């Protein structure tokens, strides 16, 4: 790995924090930061700044809430169809006494919510390896937690944010005490991870900027949710094991347990690792053999369309958006716990054949940059039993952990 001087690190530090450098340059700067206390301090300071700027916009009204509001207005003004019926429109009319009873139940519930929000509870525990840091005044009490060091652990809250540089790792363990189960999220840098400021243990949502994610999600009640957003996609999970790799060319979704129903701008369908099939409902997708489990690439700069090929009885199936066709230069196959780079090659994965690879159809590249919204609904796996306790999880720790911030220190 090439060595970089302090002057170059300082010059490129914002690009490093913004993930605008090549993988090689990111790794070189990460290596420098590990050895240079002065540059590391600067990195921590600027990472904190970036986090604070992000949080300044946390109250942005845009997103799904805005979509509903906007479509309602468009409908009301007769521009687009009729406004969606509000949910309460479907509810039966309550007799007066029932409404009164409901009110009596709601008042203490509101009081309970207020009490709970005054005393925020951690969602779970985090642990970092490498340079990963918690940044910003991100917990729901507005208190900042900021750690410097090689390895840390502590509690995380709604709104917590983490900066995970290259070659560093972050593990989040989300407690779901109501069902006595635990979900885990392992993020490999370079990545920025922000826990949604409205996230709850049973309604978890986090945003991951880049890097790769391995998640093992406890089987939840259908009303509960576990959502990971990336710049290209949203993975909505009910109970499964899956991985996300966020790359320059898009987000790769890898599923090892549970069938995945995905929706994207270019189409929708189901990826099922149990019979290694991809069943399209609409749109078109390129499929090829992967290494371990179905893979779905949502391209960041192309269209989510292309030819679709079903798996033919091999060990896995993969879905890729066009432009990358089968294996564009630099194409990497993501699998939980491993990544196989196959630069310029057709396919370099066991269980795959060149014929399979060549069978995928390329489509027209060169369209304007788009970020397809993907809603990936993962059906509960019938086989999977998530770990039932923290002890079930492999949670390696560094020596420095003993002095790491604790729950108490984090508020």
């Amino acid at each position, binding site marked *: 790995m090439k060595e970089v001087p302090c002057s170059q690190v300082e010059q490129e530090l*914002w690009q490093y924090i913004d993930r605008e450098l090549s993988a090689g340059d990111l790794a070189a700067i990460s290596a420098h930061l590990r050895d240079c206390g002065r540059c590391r301090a600067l990195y921590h300071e600027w990472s904190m700044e970036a986090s604070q700027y992000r949080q300044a916009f946390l109250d942005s009204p845009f997103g799904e809430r805005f979509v509903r509001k906007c479509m309602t207005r468009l409908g009301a003004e007769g521009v687009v169809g009729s406004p969606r019926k509000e949910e309460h429109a479907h509810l039966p009319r309550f007799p007066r006494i029932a409404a009164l009873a409901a009110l009596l139940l709601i008042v203490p519930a509101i009081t309970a919510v207020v009490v709970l929000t005054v005393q*925020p509870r951690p969602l779970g525990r985090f642990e970092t390896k490498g340079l990963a840091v918690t940044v910003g005044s991100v917990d729901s009490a507005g208190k900042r937690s900021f750690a410097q060091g090689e390895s840390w652990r502590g509690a995380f809250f709604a709104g917590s944010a983490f900066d995970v540089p290259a070659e560093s790792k972050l593990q989040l363990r989300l407690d779901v005490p109501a069902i006595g189960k635990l979900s885990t999220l392992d993020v490999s840098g370079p990545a920025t991870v922000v826990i949604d400021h409205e996230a709850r243990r049973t309604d978890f949502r986090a945003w991951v900027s880049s890097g790769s994610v391995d998640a093992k999600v406890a089987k939840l009640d259908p009303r509960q949710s576990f959502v990971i957003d990336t710049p290209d996609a949203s993975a909505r999970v009910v109970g499964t094991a899956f991985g996300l790799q966020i790359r320059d060319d898009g987000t790769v979704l890898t599923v090892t347990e549970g069938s995945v129903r995905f929706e994207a701008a*270019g189409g929708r369908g189901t990826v099922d690792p149990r019979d290694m099939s991809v069943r399209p409902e609409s749109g078109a997708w390129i499929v090829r053999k992967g290494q371990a489990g179905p893979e779905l690439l949502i391209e960041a700069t192309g269209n989510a369309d292309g030819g679709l090929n079903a798996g033919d009885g091999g060990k896995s199936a993969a879905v890729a958006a066009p432009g990358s066709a089968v294996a564009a230069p630099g194409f990497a196959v993501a699998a939980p716990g491993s990544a196989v780079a196959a630069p310029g090659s057709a396919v370099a994965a066991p269980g795959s054949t060149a014929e399979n690879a060549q069978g995928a159809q390329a489509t027209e590249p060169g369209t304007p*940059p788009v970020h397809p919204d993907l809603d990936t609904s993962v059906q509960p796996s019938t086989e999977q039993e998530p770990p039932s306790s923290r002890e079930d999880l492999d949670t390696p720790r560094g020596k420095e952990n003993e002095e790491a911030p604790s729950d108490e220190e984090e508020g």
Partner: protein
Amino acid sequence: MKALGSPAGRQMLSEDREYVERILAGEPEAFEALVRKYNRVGGAIAFAIVGDFHLAEDVVQDAFIRAFRSLAALRDPDRFKFWFSELVRSRALDVLRQRRAHGTEELPEEFSLDTSKTSSVEEEQMRKELRQRILRAIGELPEEDRLVVVLKHMEGLSYKEIADIMNTSVGAVESRLFRARHALRKKLPTGQP
């Protein structure tokens, strides 16, 4: 391997083009997909100009209505994103002009937060103070620098995406962002960007 879906070599339409064509073909519901896809970018542009979330919401809604009504005039549906971005910018500037004409200050809401969703008074007060300081400092930047900062930190866009929206080069975005962050650091107290 059996090929499903579209035939080989078929020229696939871009998704924006597909949405636009579906809308023009009498399927207005497809417009919701465009709203879902571009409301955040539109919101960032509007907020960078008007400096207020409530106003920005109105601006983006107005822009979507205008986009829908004049969709047939869009020559290249693949460029919907850029066309819509310009509609938002134009509408936001109109709103500023109207406010000036009515004797209101340019940023009457002090580049402000929506504080209506307080979860507790103490908590919100702490969050509000810090974020207002940051937003106020961002609001004092020149418009182009402000837009870069908002697109970067509110929307998390890459330099390339910001450059495309602003019709400028990646290098220009990078230098504006560097300059803007440097200015913000000077405006904000040490340790509290």
